[in-house]
């Protein structure tokens, strides 16, 4: 593990003026990484990989897309039918959005299981939440672009949420719409922002990686790296492990693209938008369903909107709400149970978000919503005080060598 060295005069000339080679050597090759990361640590690099796929496919889609209400739907169908491999590019982009969320959700739950958000990684975690928020905004606006029935009515329902705010609410909605209904100006500004926000995400990812490289990776044991014996260089160990992960992931991803490309979509979005006909059930994309369930669980519109936003805002406080000094759930027998309960509750909320707000679904989503917040606001602060964690290993290498013996 030495710094960057070369005999090539051109490269060293350049590197003295702009140290890109030294930086790559430092951040992508020598970068010390815990030796014990498991496969759950693959999901960050996988998410970055999908971000690149989304940018590339998106750029090619835009070359054939028309952002006018009278042309948008047909221009998408033209991509599907007449553009060379247009169906492939569009299905990659469409399913890529769902993949991005699957990967990021796994990434977030991994972070929660292993307590990665705890000091000194709070800012790293914050930037992650910001990426998640930017992803949600981007995905929402992207879903509007094909201008199908669910595009139109989803946009109508979600933008209308902002009208719940007193005084400024209606002004915000008018601003979002660019008029007094979801119409051509709405489509145009959403298209513009849908192209802008992914680059904001790229910027945030750079900051995320910067923060990561400052504090280094957490690991399944949750104890910090203490010396040479605990760490291995990123290359070749994790470059090859990440590449292997990408191979597996591509098979999963492309399985949907080639055999079930509309699995994650709504059939209604293959009907052109019609402001005069409301679909029987307006449902957001699956990745919004848990938050949609929280929104609908509260009978009051404003409080529902606030609860939905609070469900994400609360994540920012997670590092301080969790009072335990121990990071990894591996050494927290009680937290581990509650983690899986929390996970199941999130899945359950997602299930409820896809159901109509009637019958037993309503009280169920209210209970699940209360539990969601109770996990953060009551359980996590208490658990750290009540729970007796198992003994932590002296170091990563000590634990790894013991396991191997």
């Amino acid at each position: 593990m030495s710094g960057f060295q070369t005999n090539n005069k051109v490269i060293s000339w350049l590197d003295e003026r702009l140290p890109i080679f030294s930086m790559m050597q430092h951040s992508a090759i020598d970068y010390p990484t815990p030796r014990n990361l498991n496969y759950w640590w693959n999901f960050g690099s996988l998410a970055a990989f999908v971000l690149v796929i989304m940018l590339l496919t998106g750029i090619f889609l835009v070359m054939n897309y028309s952002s006018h209400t009278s042309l948008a739907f047909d221009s998408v169908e033209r991509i599907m039918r007449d553009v060379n491999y247009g169906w492939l590019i569009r299905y990659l982009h469409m399913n890529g959005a769902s993949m991005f969320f699957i990967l990021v959700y796994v990434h977030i739950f991994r972070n929660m299981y292993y307590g990665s958000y705890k000091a000194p990684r709070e800012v790293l975690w914050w930037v992650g939440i910001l990426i998640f928020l930017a992803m949600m905004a981007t995905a929402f606006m992207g879903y509007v672009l094909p201008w199908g029935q669910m595009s139109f009515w989803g946009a109508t329902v979600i933008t209308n949420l902002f009208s719940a705010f007193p005084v400024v609410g209606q002004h915000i909605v008018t601003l979002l719409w660019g008029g007094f209904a979801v119409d051509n100006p709405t489509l145009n500004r959403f298209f513009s922002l849908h192209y802008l926000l992914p680059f904001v995400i790229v910027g945030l990812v750079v900051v995320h990686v910067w923060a990561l490289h400052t504090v280094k990776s957490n690991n399944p044991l949750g104890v910090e790296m203490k010396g040479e014996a605990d760490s291995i260089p990123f290359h070749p160990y994790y470059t090859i492990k990440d590449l292997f992960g990408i191979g597996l992931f591509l098979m999963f991803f492309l399985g949907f693209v080639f055999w079930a490309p509309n699995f994650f979509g709504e059939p209604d979005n293959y009907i052109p938008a019609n402001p005069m006909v409301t679909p029987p059930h307006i449902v957001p994309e699956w990745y919004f369903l848990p938050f949609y369930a929280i929104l609908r669980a509260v009978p009051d519109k404003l409080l529902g909107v606030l609860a939905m936003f609070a469900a994400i805002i609360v994540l920012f406080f997670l590092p301080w709400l969790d009072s335990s000094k121990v990071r990894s759930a591996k050494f927290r027998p009680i937290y581990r149970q509650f983690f899986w309960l929390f996970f199941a509750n999130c899945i359950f909320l997602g299930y409820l978000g896809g159901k109509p707000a009637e019958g037993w679904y309503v009280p169920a989503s209210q209970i699940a919503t209360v539990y969601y917040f109770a996990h953060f606001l009551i359980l996590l602060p208490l658990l750290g005080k009540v729970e007796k964690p198992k003994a932590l290993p002296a170091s990563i290498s000590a634990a790894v060598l013991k396991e191997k013996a």
Partner: protein
Amino acid sequence: MRKLILSALTAAGLFASSGAALAAGGGEPLMKPGFSWDGFFGRYDQAELKRGFEVFNQVCSNCHGLRLVAYRNLSAVGLTADQIKDVAAAREVADAPNDEGMVSMRAGRASDKYINPFPNDKAAAAANGGALPPDLSLMAKARVGGPNYIYSLMLGFKEEAPHGVVIPEGKYYNTYFPGNAIGMPPQLMEDLITYSDGTKASQEQLARDVTAFLNWAAEPELNERKSMGLKVMIFLAVFTALLYALKRQIWKNLH
């Protein structure tokens, strides 16, 4: 790894159930006859597509549009260039203005999109008792159940509505239509058309063939998609196995 698979399954179950939740309130579960294009190796049956086109062209297209499909695309269902010209020429569209600025009608061409049977939606609804016959280009993707829905709907008409169900004047009872009262009369009678390949036109045969054609209209890329998918998967399986071997090799000396 076991947990990974488990959570993938949980997630898949969640999506499947949320999809099912959206099934419109028609009641009866759809018929699932099984289609040639189902599954990993599924492909369209060319003879079936051609028969389905004959049903569509002679029956459905009298009321329904297919505005996203061009006549030239029909070569994929097995029509020759001359047959395509004849099908296209059966309808007229407004030509571009001539040098004097007069607009006249001309016969359809292979390069035209399928010409709608009615000049506009209002005319289509007026001619059909107020119910607009929907365009069928994307029908196989735009309904829950897709091709199963089309097939079931075609065979779901009942002469008599069940006891207690009132069907308004000018509507028909269909088991699978949301709300059960459909504006379209039953269409697929035995021997409704004479197939050019001599197949007996039973109701099930007609329904199956027209479903195949409409699925092709919605997903014309399906054959190409699935065969490309197979090649990609074989490549990825080998490539990923090599990456795994390499990973094992690199990590072996770490202790």
